[in-house]
């Protein structure tokens, strides 16, 4: 009898503790899983800058921890488990390939909050997904590309065939074509986020094929470093301003600003108000920024800034019909605007882009 009472009170104690974690906390440990090194010059560095600012914002109230170079897949699951066991209250996993591992680990640690960047699976109440509307930035860069290309060939170094990347390819192409109907989009799949030599090789292959404007959806500055060797070739900063390649080959950039989001979410854990959600902000909310436009004629700059300002003002949506799919079927009728559902599952090129998306 005594033993049963003991067990019951222990269970009660445990449930009280569990309830306690759901309430407001004085000190939060926020942990971050990175796919690349914190000085990759792009994606991971942009996250890390935001993390350091988050730490600065909260001071002693928040402890941050991060791990770099975590491969997508089983390794990441181990890292997340370690973090959860190590007392992290909220874990941000910052690459698409962490999607299933994040959900798997979240199932085992219901009291820990998980935030997965760029994914779409929220299988448990303690999983949130967050992303930014990079395609809005691509619309601005695409406008520049269409006006600047002399060979009428623009290239895209794509990482993996996931909706976010395909949104970027379609948005870049649509806006380049709007400025220059003769423009042709050349896509190279690198199947990596972070491999400077391969990214440089991909940029070289594009240049060899006559491309003179290079978009990248990989994480390092290698494509710009390579483009700098060939006069007349331009590119764009990705994830971070990449201002070291100003004024050219980097003529503008898409800047990821995660800071506001991280502060908001860590605050929510602190206040006990954290809830699972899907966050997807863009230019208007400042989650995506456009880097200073340099090294291009004034009219190009003005046209690009107009696209940016119209998107911010809400008077223009980058995917406004009529837009057909690659096979010629109608995707968006005249005046129709793409919905978030359309974006989440985007797995097709728009009309005019040649080639197949790897499955």
């Amino acid at each position, binding site marked *: 009898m005594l033993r049963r009472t003991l067990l019951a009170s222990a269970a009660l104690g445990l449930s009280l503790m569990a309830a306690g974690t759901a309430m407001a906390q004085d000190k939060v440990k926020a942990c971050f899983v990175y796919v690349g090194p914190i*000085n990759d010059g792009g994606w991971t560095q942009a996250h890390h800058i935001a993390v350091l600012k988050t730490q600065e914002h909260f001071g002693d109230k928040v402890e941050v921890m991060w791990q770099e*170079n975590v491969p997508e897949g089983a390794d990441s699951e181990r890292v997340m488990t370690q973090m959860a066991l190590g007392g992290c209250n909220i874990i941000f996993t910052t690459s698409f390939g962490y999607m299933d591992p994040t959900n798997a680990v979240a199932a085992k640690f219901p009291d820990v909050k998980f935030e997965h960047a760029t994914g779409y699976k929220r299988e448990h109440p303690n999983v949130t997904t967050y992303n930014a509307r990079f395609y809005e930035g691509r619309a601005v860069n695409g406008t520049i590309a269409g006006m600047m290309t002399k060979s009428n060939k623009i290239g895209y170094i794509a990482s993996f065939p996931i909706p976010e990347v395909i949104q970027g390819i379609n948005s870049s192409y649509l806006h380049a074509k709007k400025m220059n109907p003769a423009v042709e989009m050349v896509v*190279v799949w690198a199947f990596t986020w972070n491999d400077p*030599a391969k990214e440089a*090789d991909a940029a070289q292959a594009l240049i060899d*094929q006559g*491309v003179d404007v290079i978009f990248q959806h990989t994480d390092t500055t*290698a494509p710009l470093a390579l483009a700098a060797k060939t006069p007349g070739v331009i590119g764009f900063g990705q994830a971070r301003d990449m201002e*070291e390649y100003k004024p050219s080959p980097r003529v503008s950039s898409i800047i990821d600003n995660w800071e506001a989001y991280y502060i908001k979410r860590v605050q929510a854990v602190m206040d006990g108000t954290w809830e699972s959600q899907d966050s997807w902000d863009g230019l208007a909310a400042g989650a995506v920024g456009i880097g200073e436009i340099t090294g291009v004629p004034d009219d190009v700059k003005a046209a690009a800034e107009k696209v940016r300002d119209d998107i911010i003002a809400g008077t223009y949506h980058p995917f406004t019909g009529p837009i057909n799919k690659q096979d010629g079927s109608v995707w968006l009728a005249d005046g129709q605007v793409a919905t978030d559902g359309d974006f989440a599952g985007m797995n097709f090129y728009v009309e005019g882009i040649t080639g197949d998306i790897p499955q």
Partner: protein
Amino acid sequence: MGDINLSVLIASLMVASVPILLAALGEMVTERAGVLNLGVEGMMIMGAICGFIVAVGTGSPLLGFVAGAAGGAGISLLFAVLTLVFLANQVATGLALTLFGLGLSALMGQGYTGIKPPATAEIDFGALSEIPFLGRVLFSHDWVVYFSLFMVVAIWWFITRTRAGLVLRAVGESAEAAHALGYKVARIRLGAIAFGGAMAGMGGAYISLIRVPQWTDGITAGAGWIALAIVVFASWRPVRVLIGAYLFGGITVLQLNLQAAGSSIPVEYLSMAPYLVTIAVLVAISAGRGRNTDAPAALGQNFHSVR
């Protein structure tokens, strides 16, 4: 493939292959002396950062390559001390060397991201580079490309045509026998390890100074492992190492170009092609004669002379 300019493709593949070629040649010499150093990746990345730091500091890419070689050789001496003096397991030590090199290079590289290294000019061959096709293929490169080709010939000549090369091979085939003949096994292996380190370091420096050119943590991204594999599949012969490196580099460049040229071959097949084709071709040319005797007989075995 109609859209792909063959001369441009060959010129690109020669550049893309240099890091793997240099590292694989160095590792081949090391393994010919009976030492299996799995730390190629670590030595390459040390060469990449040492070369980068010195090239940025002095403004001289040439000094950068010297420093890259020194950095690779320097870290390889760690391996040499552990395996030759303390007789540590070569496989474990080599793996540790890679991890150590990746970490140390990241530490040394703090503050070097976002910096552009001094450019290495392509050698000016004047009228020769105007020759159609051959001019672009043969006479449009920086000096390291020619150096790597020179090293193929030099190492081939050294291993197969010189007495010192024979001694090196003897050490790799049977350290006991070489020792009995009075050759200093440890000293010869030390030289081979340092040479392998220097070549890997130069290969790494080529990535950070010319091919990319910038510093990022982990910039070698597995090139060292490819070099190791090529040595095995090339059955420890210099010319086959060249073939292997050019095949791998060539198909990597070709598959990207095919994608860019709008090839109808599915991207998945193109992406795996460099690995598959390189292995298939090297296995094919190495198959048949003397397959089992290709590897140096004493490869991976430590030797300690009992005095």
